[in-house]
């Protein structure tokens, strides 16, 4: 689990790239061009005015880290453009198809850190057929050649092969940080190459990736003489690891601060690691259970003291197969925790209470709805500093019972006034509770409510959920990310268009009555960048109402709506800088005559991409 703020508003253009990594960007990198020195032979030669300007600019621009500021600076004039391009150290590419590797490496010559994002988010939920694209290979080739000093790479939703990782490892001698989020295409053999060849590696964070089990003991591949590892996160690598090797690795990694284990590590093994590394600040506990049944009276290690000795722990996660009896072990660290992830822990309200009542400093909390409304009430009573709450469903089905409801939401809104980010899955909700939250939590930046039953109205009044979401966009003046659900009419969209002036990301599912809904949003939300819509009755007319805005957006996704190929074609003709992909959701090639399955469109400097699979047609 990442506790970084970027999770809250992912497309925050004004965010400094340093927010993504959680560490300060080093501005101490010494890029100063050699300026002409007055001649050593006694003759004073005045440097050209352009040269002076450029030197000054360089030194000033060094301090500009926000990409938004840099983008602005680069537009001033050619000279500023040139200097900015030479001094940009952190590259952020929100859509890997918006620009080509060659164009990037030709403009920016000295880059130390690259962030690259690929597939659209709905691909996470199996809505995109496999092999759609977002291949890392062309990028790694270009970067290996043009950025040999590259230190950091942060990839999200990219397809990365073992060969790609091999090229990275062999070409980049200063490589320090690899962060892979929601990526796939590689296996433990790729990890082995990274571990063994990247001798300066400080960060290896694997988050929600699909990692193939090649039965390679990658943990043993780290350098024998010691590592500079500060962060090793591999809870998503779902295969057994060589525990003895891991123990030795931790023992020879004195800088290790963040460690997140997978579910193959038992609590006994966790104990051994913890006593080796009491300096940890972030810990993912693995299974948090025993592989053997421990009968009463058996000697168990002194787990409590291991936790008590970890005085620096501020972030706890894991608990993949938790045995609730072990919960009390973490009591000693609760008072210091700012981040706690129980989203894999099937615990009830009472069990949660025993832990949460100590967690006064908690700012980020992820939990399963198994704790019920009662559990959320306990959170509300204790965690006055809470900024981010995510409540996941243990039964992710439409027709399940749903142990959390408007009661829990209301309690949270009353107790956690500083809330900034919410993700809440439930089966029942009321407008009143959502309205209350909009008033109680004015700092909300991210509001994502998922009522799992499609088209479900307010379960008390039977009204659509329009007023609730309307209140959110109206009262939460800082809102940039919104996900709506439940029974929603065009009215909800008119509220969003009217009040959601800062909204950058909007997720819509099974909502709206007519084209007017989408029109309201496209015409009303000037900051809209990412719009993802599924199963809603919006057609070609609505699509065409956004022409004035599409070049300002990163992408538009519309699946199972009422768009026709003709409508998409016409759009593509009018907007030459847009790539308009029509995708068959089942991965088959044949053209459909009826409505388009998936429309995925994005601005791009490159035109249609060359790596199209046969189920994607560019209009």
């Amino acid at each position, binding site marked *: 689990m990442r506790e970084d703020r970027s999770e809250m508003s992912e497309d925050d253009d004004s965010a400094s790239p340093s927010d993504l990594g959680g560490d300060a960007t080093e501005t101490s990198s010494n890029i100063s061009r050699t300026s002409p020195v007055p001649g050593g032979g006694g003759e004073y030669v005045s440097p050209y005015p352009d040269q002076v300007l450029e030197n000054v600019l360089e030194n000033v621009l060094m301090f500009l880290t926000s990409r938004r500021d840099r983008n602005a600076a680069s537009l001033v004039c050619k000279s500023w453009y040139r200097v900015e391009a030479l001094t940009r150290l952190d590259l952020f590419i929100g859509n890997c198809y918006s620009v080509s590797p060659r164009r990037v490496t030709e403009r920016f010559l000295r880059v130390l850190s690259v962030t690259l994002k690929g597939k659209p988010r709905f691909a996470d939920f*199996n*809505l995109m057929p496999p092999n759609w694209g977002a291949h890392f290979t062309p990028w790694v080739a270009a970067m290996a050649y043009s950025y040999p000093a590259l230190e950091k790479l942060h990839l999200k939703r990219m397809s990365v092969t073992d060969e790609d990782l091999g090229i990275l490892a062999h070409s980049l001698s200063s490589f320090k940080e690899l962060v892979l989020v929601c990526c796939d295409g590689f296996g433990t053999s790729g990890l082995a190459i990274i571990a063994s060849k990247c001798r300066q590696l400080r960060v290896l964070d694997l988050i*929600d990736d699909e990692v193939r089990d090649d039965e390679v003991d990658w943990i043993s591949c780290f350098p024998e003489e010691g590592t500079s590892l500060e962060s090793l996160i591999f809870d998503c690598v779902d295969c057994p690891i060589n525990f003895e090797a891991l123990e030795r690795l931790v023992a020879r990694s004195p800088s290790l601060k963040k460690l997140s284990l997978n579910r193959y590590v038992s609590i006994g093994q966790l104990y051994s690691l913890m006593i080796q590394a009491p300096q940890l600040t972030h810990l993912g506990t693995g299974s948090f259970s025993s592989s053997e049944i421990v*009968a009463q009276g058996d000697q168990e290690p002194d787990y409590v003291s291991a936790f008590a000795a970890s005085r620096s722990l501020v972030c706890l996660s894991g608990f993949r197969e938790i045995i609730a009896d072990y919960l009390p072990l973490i009591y000693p660290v609760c008072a210091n925790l700012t981040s706690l992830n129980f989203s894999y822990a099937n615990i009830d309200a009472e069990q949660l209470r025993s832990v949460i009542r100590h967690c006064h400093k908690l700012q980020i909390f992820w939990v399963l709805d198994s704790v019920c409304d009662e559990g959320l009430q306990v959170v509300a009573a204790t965690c006055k500093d809470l900024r981010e709450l995510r409540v996941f469903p243990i039964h992710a*089905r439409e*027709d399940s019972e749903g142990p959390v409801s408007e009661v829990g939401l209301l309690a949270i809104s009353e107790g956690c006034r500083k809330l900034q980010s919410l993700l809440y899955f439930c089966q029942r909700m009321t407008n009143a509770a959502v309205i209350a939250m909009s008033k109680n939590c004015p700092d909300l930046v991210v509001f994502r409510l998922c009522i799992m039953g*499609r*088209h*479900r109205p307010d379960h008390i009044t039977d009204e659509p959920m329009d007023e609730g979401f309307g209140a959110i966009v109206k009262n939460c003046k800082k809102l940039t990310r919104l996900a709506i659900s439940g029974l929603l009419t065009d009215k909800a969209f008119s509220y969003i268009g009217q009040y959601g002036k800062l909204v950058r990301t909007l997720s819509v*599912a099974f909502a709206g009555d007519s084209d007017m809904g989408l029109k309201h949003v496209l015409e009303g939300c000037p900051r809209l960048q990412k719009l993802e819509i599924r199963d809603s009755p919006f057609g070609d007319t609505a699509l065409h109402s956004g022409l004035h805005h599409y070049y300002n957006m990163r992408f538009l996704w519309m699946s199972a709506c009422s768009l026709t190929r003709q409508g998409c074609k016409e759009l593509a003709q009018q907007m030459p800088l847009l790539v308009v992909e029509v995708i068959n959701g089942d991965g088959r090639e044949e053209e459909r005559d009826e409505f388009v399955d998936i429309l995925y469109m994005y601005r791009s400097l490159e035109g249609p991409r060359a790596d199209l699979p046969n189920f994607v047609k560019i209009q």
Partner: protein
Amino acid sequence: MEGGVVYESGLNLKATELRLGLPGTDESEKQTTFNIRNNKRPSPDTVEDCGSSGSSDDKHGGHETAPAAKAQVVGWPPIRSYRKNSFQAKKIEVETGIYVKVSMDGAPYLRKIDLKVYKGYPELLKALENMFKLTIGEYSEREGYKGSEYAPTYEDKDGDWMLVGDVPWDMFMSSCKRLRIMRGSEARGLGCSI
């Protein structure tokens, strides 16, 4: 066929009966499956194919072209598969029970029972007695199943054959792989004093 049907244990005939009402209008059927292929307990997959979801369909039929039974929709709710699967496995354990084979010395075929159905050893032993028409008797720590010709044993996770009753019930449930009812001299060897 309408009206009440006699439940035969394990057959769940009600699930397969023909009715005129909409599926799901009978509350007690909410969780059953229209699975006429076999007599198994409903699995999570088939449960997803049926079941009512309350008023929203009836009131706003215009939005839903499908009939009242809701099939699971791809990618909804929006939870990553990794997360969904983490609990899928657990759910299966919880909902489908712990089935173990039971063999009895001399019997021509084996039986299968669901350990989850029993709250403890007394119920289990009673059930075994009924199933095989024999008497096992009472357990004592020192003497095992004294006085009985039979001894219930089980194979545990390590592959060892243990006497049923020695360990706490929960531990037994999680470590028992199969049951065997021993008889005769073998049985007497397991701690029965004569």
